[in-house]
């Protein structure tokens, strides 16, 4: 994507987005409601067209995507709208009729694992069951690019866990790419290796998840003798909770070596740890909100 912008009435849904998605990764797309995640995903597959900028998928402009390119993309829609009047079996037969590469073994295995009742009408399924079905329809032909827009929001905890295992299984295929947008950060955290964080139509972060995790450190300083000094001379402190003998700090762009050097004269015990994705996400979004204010 190059300088992609999209506006819906007064809302700037995407604002000059630049994005490269490389093969063979699970990309987590994070953001609050209305951040532009679904809009971005729909641009990738040509359901939406950009007002400005250029969007290319598999070498073709998204407005000119042909069956050849689209036949390599699986997509799970956020609302999970399907053809309600069909039975599950009929819908699977219908969608599979489009693909030469439909994997019937995978289909059967998925139906068993996820306990999908194929005789039921799609319209009568619970939201979780619909979502499972939508996922099956998106993965059944083993796409090279799998786009999942809030796929796990309606799944129960066991199904979510199975679903994450499934993603890891899918990604083992050569050159497969998965883009997953989700609010359930703890789930995405388990599988993603690249992070995109969006806010108000802009990408705040586009980096590998490992880099992102290394960027932030949670540091606990416990004094071994007496109180901690009133001023702790650390840079890039994002958050600090301090009592007389203990301080818990969140620091950015600071390695453990640098920390050790700075606490050398303090006579205290240092414990460091990585922040969970949820906290990292909050920090990044709040930082951006602070800048905008």
């Amino acid at each position, binding site marked *: 994507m190059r300088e992609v912008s999209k506006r819906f009435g007064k809302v700037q849904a995407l604002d000059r987005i630049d994005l490269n998605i490389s093969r063979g990764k699970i990309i987590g797309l994070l953001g609050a409601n209305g951040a532009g995640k679904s809009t971005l995903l729909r641009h990738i597959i040509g359901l939406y067209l950009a007002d400005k900028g250029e969007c290319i998928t598999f070498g073709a402009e998204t407005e000119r995507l042909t069956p050849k390119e689209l036949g390599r993309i699986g997509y799970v829609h956020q609302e999970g709208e399907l053809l309600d009047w069909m039975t599950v079996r009929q819908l699977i*037969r219908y969608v599979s009729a*489009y693909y030469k590469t439909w994997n019937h073994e995978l289909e059967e295995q998925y139906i068993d694992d996820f306990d999908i009742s194929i005789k039921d*009408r799609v319209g009568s399924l619970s939201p979780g069951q619909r979502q499972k079905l939508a996922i099956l*329809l998106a993965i059944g032909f083993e796409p090279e690019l799998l786009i999942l827009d809030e796929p796990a929001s309606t799944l129960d905890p066991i199904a979510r866990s199975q679903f994450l295992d499934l993603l890891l299984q899918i990604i083992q295929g050569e050159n497969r790419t998965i883009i997953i947008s989700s609010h359930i950060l703890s789930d995405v955290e388990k599988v993603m290796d690249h992070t995109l964080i969006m806010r108000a139509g802009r990408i705040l972060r586009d980096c590998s998840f490992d880099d992102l995790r290394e960027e932030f450190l949670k540091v606990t300083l416990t004094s071994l003798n007496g109180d901690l000094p009133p001023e702790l001379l650390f840079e890039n402190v994002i958050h600090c909770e301090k009592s007389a003998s203990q301080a818990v700090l969140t620091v950015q762009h600071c390695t453990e070596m640098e920390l050790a050097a700075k606490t050398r004269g303090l006579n205290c015990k240092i414990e460091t740890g990585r922040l969970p994705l949820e906290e990292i996400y909050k920090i990044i979004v709040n930082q951006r909100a602070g800048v905008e204010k």
Partner: protein
Amino acid sequence: MSILVANLKHLYQQRLAWLWYLIILLNLTILLLASSRYTTTSMIFSVCIGNVCMGMAVGAMQKDVLTKPFSFCLPGHRNIPRHFVFLVGGIVSFVVACGYFKYPGLGFPHVLLVVLAADSVGIILYLCGAYVGFMGSQLRFTDVRQWPFFIAFVALLICSFVVPNTIISYPIPVIAVGVAICVAVWNVLGRDVAARRYCGRFLPGLLDLNRAKTMNYQRAIQQLDLAEGSRFFERIERFFLGRMKQHESLNTRRYVWGQLYVAFGKFFAFWGMKPVLVSVGLMIVALLALGLMRMGQLSTINILFIMPALTVLGMDLMPCRNILLPVGRAERYRGMLVLAIIFTLSALVWILAMTGVSTVMEKGLPEFSFRGWTFSYHGMDISHLYVYFLCMPLALSWAVVVRRSFFLTLMCVVFVLPGWMVYGVQYDRTLVKVIGPLGVAAVMALCWIGFLVVSRYVCMRRCLVSN
């Protein structure tokens, strides 16, 4: 403030109710203007329709109140719908019935009885409308138990021309029937079971705009309706999937067959052959009834020329938007055109068949008299076929742009029908006579070109799913 008075506020607080008032007013004005130029039959019919529409709006309003859980808990609230329905209906039909005070040659107390009889007829029609509004989507043509209601309702409307003579000749029996029906409806609306049945349920009706809620409701209904598959539909599925697989994977033709399957299959998915049988039944009724009615200088049966267009308004020419199928925008455009062509040709065959049958009936059915009215059957006039070719591209363009918005489609239908009435009345100044056959052909060509441009723009440039 009493509960009833609080409920009466719905009449102006419910925003969509204003639309209904506008619709009633517009239709009545056009119909009255149009009808008074030629016959009183249509005028009576239009007044009857006005009562029915008012009843529908009020019935839907009360259903809306009953479905709210808080109204179930409020003391005395469960009885309010019937008070509300009868209060509004009583006033509306009495005001309309007062017109009989001016009827020439009626002395006192006969005129009083006639007014009460007219009030009874008015309230019966109003209650029919209220029943439709109240029941909303629970009314099913496929439910045999509901057929007596539909038959009585349609018969009452069709035979509305006998109303004046009947209420003047037999006011007391008419009043008796009216009272009996009022008592029955009063009991039905007042039962606690209605409150229990409706409370907390989403029952989309005539005042609902929320598409998401409507879809949830449809899903729930589908759960009830679709317990078993039909063999007929299985054959349809096999046919379409077979055709799809005859073509190369990722080929446009495969997509087109898939689209045809989705577009037509759903009509048979739930009830198998029933929709076909119901449609045939309705066609027979329409052929028989409409051929006997007149609208200005035109036989009402000619309205069948615009029926396919009205049907197309509610269709989605690009189904399966939310499932990512291996089809690009260009393929979707081609698929849409194929669907449009197939709809147009199928409807044309239907229209020609109806025209043929009605022409045969016109020659075969003798003229007859009933209660002072003489009836002669008129078939469809093939010279109006151009109206079909004008309406179809407009309806197709509407379907492409609006995409199955129930509300907007309803609006369109509401304005198209009076338009047709005016066409009937102004028949001596129809488009053909005003701009000539060549002009009509040019307008027709423009309409079709317009459809091509609109559908191409929607397929190639617009967002394919809603935001």
